[in-house]
Each structure stands twice: as C-alpha cells, then as structure tokens.
C-alpha cells in the first residue's frame, strides 16, 4: 500500500489479521474510517524532506534534545 492511498475495509482487515487482530464488523468500520483519515492526514508529512536526520527520538540524549 502506498502512503497516499487511503486503505479500504479489505485492506484494513488484512492488515489487522496479519497482526493477530480480528475485529467485529462495527469496530472494523470505525477503524477503516479512522485509518483512512490518518493516512490522509499523514500524507502531508511524507512531503517534508527530513534531510539527514535519523529517527533518534526514542534514544535522544541531553545534547540532542537541548
């Protein structure tokens, strides 16, 4: 799935099952909508060039965060 393609219900079902999650229909409908909203919202972030930055948020030390 490309980040710019909102996932459909079947895609969401497959992704969930791949992680050991099997949702009742109502929960799946909600998730498909919220996930599509999220993908659309994050699409703008994919347009930002992160330069040479590495994803150090989890391990950022005092120098990195100040």
């Amino acid at each position, binding site marked *: 799935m490309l980040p710019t393609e909102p996932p459909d219900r079947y895609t969401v079902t497959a992704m969930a099952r791949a992680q050991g999650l099997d949702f009742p229909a109502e929960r799946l409908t*909600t998730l498909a909508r919220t996930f599509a909203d999220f993908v659309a919202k994050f699409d703008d972030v994919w347009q930002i060039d992160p330069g040479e930055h590495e994803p150090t948020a989890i391990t950022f030390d*005092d120098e990195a*965060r100040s």
Partner: protein
Amino acid sequence: MTTAEHELDLCFMTIAELSTLIRNREVSPVEVTTAMLNRISRHNDTMHAYITLTGDTAKEQARTAEHEIATGNYRGPLHGVTISLKDNIATRGIRTSCASMVAPNWVPDADATVYAKLREAGAILVGKANLFEYAFSMNSAYPNAVNPWNPERTSSGSSSGSGVAVAAGMVHGSIGTDTGGSGRAPANVNGAVGFKATYGRVSRAGVFPLSYTLDHTTMMTRSVRDSALMLQATAGHDPRDENSSRVDVPDFSARIGQDISGMRLALARGYTHEGIDGDVVGVFGAAVETLRTLGAQIDEVQLPYVQHCAALQLATMNPEAAEIHHDTHRNAPDKLGETALMRLDLGSLVPATTYVRAQRIRKLMRDAFRDLLDRYDAIISPALAMRPGVAGTWTTIIDGKEVDLRSAGPEYTGIYNLTGMPALVLPGGFSSEGTPIGIQIAGRWFDEATVLRIAHAFEQTTGWPKRPPYPKDDSANSQM
C-alpha cells in the same frame, strides 16, 4: 473564625503559604492532614477526584512529619503538605488502578520514583487521583471527575482528578502525566497550574507508560511558585528511567519574582485568528496586553510544523501505546473502553515506515524551535482553542461549531510533547459560562526557570488562585 472556616482555609492555602506556617509551627501536619481528609471524605462522592483514598497512610505520614518538625528535623517546603498522585503512578502496597478494568486491583511492589522523592521531601499522600483509562480513553471504569466551576462542563483529562482536586481544595499539590496535554488541559479547564518540565527532567519510572517518547510527569498546583517547589522535589536523574536527563537541577524558584521587562516573547500566530473560541481570544488578548504592560516585547511568529502536529502525534502515540497494550488488546479487549480500543486498533495498523518518518520530522521540529528560541525567551499561546465541552463527551463548541477535542489538542499542547520543551498552563480568566481559561508559556529545553518567572509575573496580575463555587462547603468537624 470558626473551626470549619479555619480548616477550609488550610485546604485552600498554597504550598508556599502553608509551608511557612508549618515551618514556624503555627499549624501542624496532623492538623492540616485532618482538615484535608475531612474535606475529601465530605466531597469525593460528588466530585470523584479520587479513585482510592489513602487516609491511614496520610495519618501515619502526618504524625511522622509532626514529630520530625517538633524535634528540629524540618525537611523543606513540602514537609507536612498534602499531595495526591494520578492513579497510573505506582505506590507500593496501595492499589494502582489506571482507572481500568484490565487490572483494577493491581498493587505495585515498588513506588514510582516521583512518589519516593515526594515522600523523602516529607509530603503526605492523601489519595490516588482519578484519570482517563490508562491516560488515553474517557471510557473510564469510574465516574468522571467533576469540574468545580461548572459541573455540567468537562473536567478534561487525562489527569482529571489531579486538576479537580487541586482546584477544589482537595489537595495542595498533585502529580499528573502529560502525553499530549493530559496535565495542562485539566489545569486549563479546572483553574490550576499544570507544568510539564523538559522531557527527561522528572523521572517516569513507575508511571504506567502511554507513549515512551511523549510521556512527561507533570506538576499540578494552585500557584506557579508551588509548581516550582514540586518540581524542585521531583527533578533529577533517575537510573530507573532510561530517558532520564543528567542535566544539573537548578533552583527553579530563583527567578520567581524577577520582572520580565525587556524579555522577548513569541506570540504563536494562528492561535489568535480562526478556529478559536471568542472567549479564548478575549482572555488571551487581555493576557498579551498584560504581558506588554509588564514590559515584555511580543512579536507574532508562525510556529514551525504546527500544522502537522496532529498527524505526528497520532503516528507516535498510538503505535507506542499499541505495543505497550499488545497482550491486553488481543486477549482482553472487552475490558478496555471504546476510545482505548479505537486508539489501539489504529496504533496497530500504523506502518513502521510512518512511525520512523514521524520521528525524523520530530527532529526537524526541534531544530526549528531551537532556532526560534535563539531569538525569543519563551512562546505564549492559549492553552486550548475551545471552552470546555459537555461533561463526559469528547466534543466541545468553538463559536457554535462542534469540534472534536482530540483533533484540536495537538496544535496547542501536544506540540510541546513532540518537541519535549517545558510548557506551563496557568489561569488567565473566565469564559462567559464561568469556566476558567488558561494561557500557555513554553520555553527552551531545561530552562524551566524562565517559564516559571514569566508565569509568576503574569499570575501576580490575575488574582489567582481563586476558590471555585463547587463543592459547596458545609461544616468541617471531625477528629483524626
């Protein structure tokens, strides 16, 4: 003054006021604790500020404090002062429920570091405060805490009980947590001071995690000076917390009382225009003029990456939470609230590539804010865009338009969780419905003292802390 009035005064004193009386032996820790426990026992059934009361622990700690002070062993400004802890903060031998039905009777075998430090400072634990389930879902197993200014309006969250207890005179100071605004939002709507210091400044060891890279442990108090006192007692490196800072701990009260003339403040552009409630605009505009009157130089600036905060918050918090709750999510989903499930469902599906990209952009954000704070001493903004909504809901109203609180929050409070900068919310005024409206001051990493200095200068102009109309007070007579 009657006994009841005296007890009420003790409950509503700031920590700074009370500590002077205790140090001078004008009041005793036992007297203070008795007054507070009486008030809590009278009102908790209506206010729901606490999930678990720790009266026996409090009485024992109060007697110890009284003996120590009487024998010349005064420990400092928190000695004999009552505190509470959000109920996702571990307390040895005391139930820590996280306001969830997943493990409602969990009794930790070790204290969180933040509580151990407060005990060492002589503080007295009166209870475990109410919260949203695991700090991220309103569908709590317990009734929502009640806004003491208007019970029909939300007390917000997730540190709802801490905000309500502090504002309603049901504790002198409380420790909450803040992952996207969970400490500052309840301070905003209940009329308290909520302060999250720099990421890593205060240990999170023993605090049940929501999101490793966004979680902060937060001070909830009635005044800015009290916030500095609580932070002083809890800050510092902790080997139990892998992301704990090794930066030296300064005297956080050192600059309180200094004027702010000539200080340069960045006013967050966009926070004063569209998408913000008229009452908030009014209170914030008046606050800006007050700060100018105090001598601050204020320029409008565009905060970097603010438009991406919601996406970055979702891409970070939800996957981290989904990893933390992995087993419960699969094996006992029926024990989780609806909102918790929705967030864990979404977090499970966020691709790893998206998560990694979000962390790289957070690095860009920090660079951009570092550049901004080379030119300014602090950033000011409203605490939130809206007035508090109907109690028990996620929605609220901005000038007649229904808004989801969860989508409106990140641009105001969550931005400083993403960057890890210190950020403080304090009362600025009231809405037309009589609920408090706060302003927010954010500063440079590890420069909490400047944030406190500006906040204190502003606070002196507002007449806060004030007493809310609820709970209604009656007699206060009982013995410890």
